[in-house]
């Protein structure tokens, strides 16, 4: 027996999909045994909802509100993926995963996809599939405004608070050596401790990934007393991850992301979506499924991108809603601006054709 689905698709249901008897879990894959192509998509459709692996709680990226509804940058992409596949952005169950167990959760089939602030690297791509980059991050520095430091090059001889054991530590060493500068590392075993040490002025600067620094700055007593320095000293391309071997599912996830990027490029927003469906522009028509029948090629409905944009909006909307100037994080678009934007960034999705 199962519960009846409550609420119509698209309504703001503050609940996970209704409980139901029946198939649970995603298809599993043995190590070294790839899931067959199409398996994940079929399983998600049969189940009726997506199992999306998210962060356990990261300011701006993934968190639950008072009513238990998940929100955030990565969460919006989960909903977009569900919308692409099932036509309903609420047909998702959010599975919190820790940084340690996220990949085994994916491989064992506890989740269909990770939208979990994961840096793509060679070795991760070798065992899993990276399905794009939804946030170009990089390591940077934060310093007190009063110190007069305006560039990382001003940090010669500075004490720098850092979390130990992270790639951040290696990047820091490399960068200072490359620039012939000296620094004094003040290391902590967790990011929180590094952050609070900086707050207590035990060091002159704090280093971490920029998105984390932005979150750290919000946590300071007076956020405006601290500046993020312009130098980015490492590449951290954060993006969705899926199981190796199911190429169709990789395409679905990659193009969900691409649809949001293309929509921004083409000026399609969740607000003007209905008007844009009447557009004569061939590119817009192909993206929104009015012609070309492209959705079917990856096992989706022709109007999949319409559902994606109706659910989460275009990339710019998702960014501004969760991370942008209107939020306490106040992150600038930076690298995460369209390639042809002003100023331009790295978002460059392959065309729909």
């Amino acid at each position: 027996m199962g519960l009846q689905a409550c609420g119509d698709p698209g309504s703001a249901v503050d609940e996970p999909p209704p409980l139901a008897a029946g198939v649970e879990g995603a298809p599993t894959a043995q190590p070294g045994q790839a899931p067959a192509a199409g398996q994940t998509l079929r399983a998600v459709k049969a189940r009726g909802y997506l199992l999306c692996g998210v962060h356990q709680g990261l300011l701006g990226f993934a968190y639950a509100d008072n009513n238990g509804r998940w929100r955030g940058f990565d969460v919006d992409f989960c909903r977009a993926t569900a919308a692409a596949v099932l036509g309903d952005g609420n047909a998702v169950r959010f599975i919190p995963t820790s940084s340690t167990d996220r990949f085994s959760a994916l491989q064992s089939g506890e989740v269909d996809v990770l939208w979990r602030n994961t840096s793509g690297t060679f070795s991760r791509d070798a065992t899993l599939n990276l399905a794009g980059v939804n946030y170009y991050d990089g390591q940077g520095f934060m310093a007190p405004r009063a110190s007069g430091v305006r560039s990382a090059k001003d940090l010669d001889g500075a004490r720098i608070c850092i979390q130990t054991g992270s790639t951040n530590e290696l990047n820091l060493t490399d960068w200072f050596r490359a620039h012939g500068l000296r620094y004094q590392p003040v290391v902590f075993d967790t990011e929180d401790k590094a952050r609070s040490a900086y707050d207590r002025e035990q060091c002159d600067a704090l280093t971490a990934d920029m998105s984390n620094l932005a979150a750290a700055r919000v946590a300071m007593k007076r956020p405006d007393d601290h500046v993020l320095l312009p130098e980015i000293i490492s590449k951290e391309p954060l993006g969705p991850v899926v199981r190796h071997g199911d190429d169709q599912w990789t395409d679905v996830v990659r193009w969900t992301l691409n649809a949001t990027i293309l929509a921004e490029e083409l000026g399609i927003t969740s607000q003007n979506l209905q008007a844009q469906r009447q557009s004569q522009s061939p590119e817009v028509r192909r993206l929104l499924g009015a012609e070309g029948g492209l959705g079917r090629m990856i096992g989706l409905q022709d109007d999949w991108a319409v559902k994606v944009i109706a659910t989460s909006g275009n990339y710019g909307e998702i960014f501004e809603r969760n991370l942008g100037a209107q939020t306490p994080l106040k992150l600038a678009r930076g690298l995460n601006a369209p390639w042809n934007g002003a100023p331009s960034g790295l978002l460059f999705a392959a065309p729909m054709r």
Partner: protein
Amino acid sequence: MSPPRPRPRQPLAQRMIDALRRRPLDAAAALAVLIMAAWIAPGLMRWAIIDATWTGETKAACTEGGACWAIVTSRWRQVLAGFYPKDHLWRVAAAALVLLAGVAPLLRRRTSGLALATAPAAVLLAYGVMEGAGVLPRAPTDYWGGFFLNLFIGLGASIFALPLGIALALGRTSRLPVVKGLCVAFIEVIRGSPLIVLLFAAAVVAPLFTPAGMTLDKLTRAMIVIILFEAAYMAEAVRGGLAGVPAGQVEAARALGLDRWRTLVFVVLPQALRIATPALVNSFIGLFKDTTLIYVIGVLDITGVLRNAVTDFAWQGLETEAYVFVAAVFWVFCFGLSRWSASLERRLSIPGKSA
């Protein structure tokens, strides 16, 4: 010779002054503690209670200088039950009541034997109510969370670990070298590893080795690991109890014609468990607090839910309240348990025998 008559009691103040005069170092320490308490308490009271904010939808409702408990009250459902579906919260309440009812017989000496049957039954029933068990709509364990999860793991793991721990303790005293060796090896390996490492192994390594189609969910895997971990510690507590049973008891039982099993079940174990009770409760308290470690495998227990809450812009920056609240909840439960354990010891103590 009659015992010395107690001296007539002097007024409290007089006794205190006498005690302090006899031990000046203690007096100084006591004074220091009192001064510190007097120094901290008013500020703490002011922060935690007098100036505190109790309700609100965002941190904007919080008053400056006081604790903001609105972060807890505004999401009490998550704090208690995680993300369990709203329409089914009664199942969480029912499961919690079932769990508590299952261990309730322990509170009375006459009924405590019943707990042998009711406690494991309660854990299985609570699991069934929460999961659905084919009768109710299915809610697999990844729906579970909040304080219920701490309660379920703490009680459930202890209840199933105890028989295993007793078996291990008996195995450790076995005359068969293979049995003894295996038990010793198991206990020492488990006791030699931090729980957090075993949890990682359960979450990360185990799924890679289970055959396809036979997947155990994350919480079940963690539960198994916690049961094994707790069993190893309980085994040592029980072993201590076994060692405390006088040899004469066994000899007397044998002389009465009881066979080895009857000797064990009716003579040795009841006494051994009585001796081991404080140590067992102690290890239960330790385990109960350790249940918060499941955060590392991505499960949102009461700690996880509140850690998540402070990443909501609405509550960002209220880490202190979140952690103080969790600490207070665990303190209330653990302090209650240790008081209960102390009273249990008194009731179980054999009259005329100093423990």
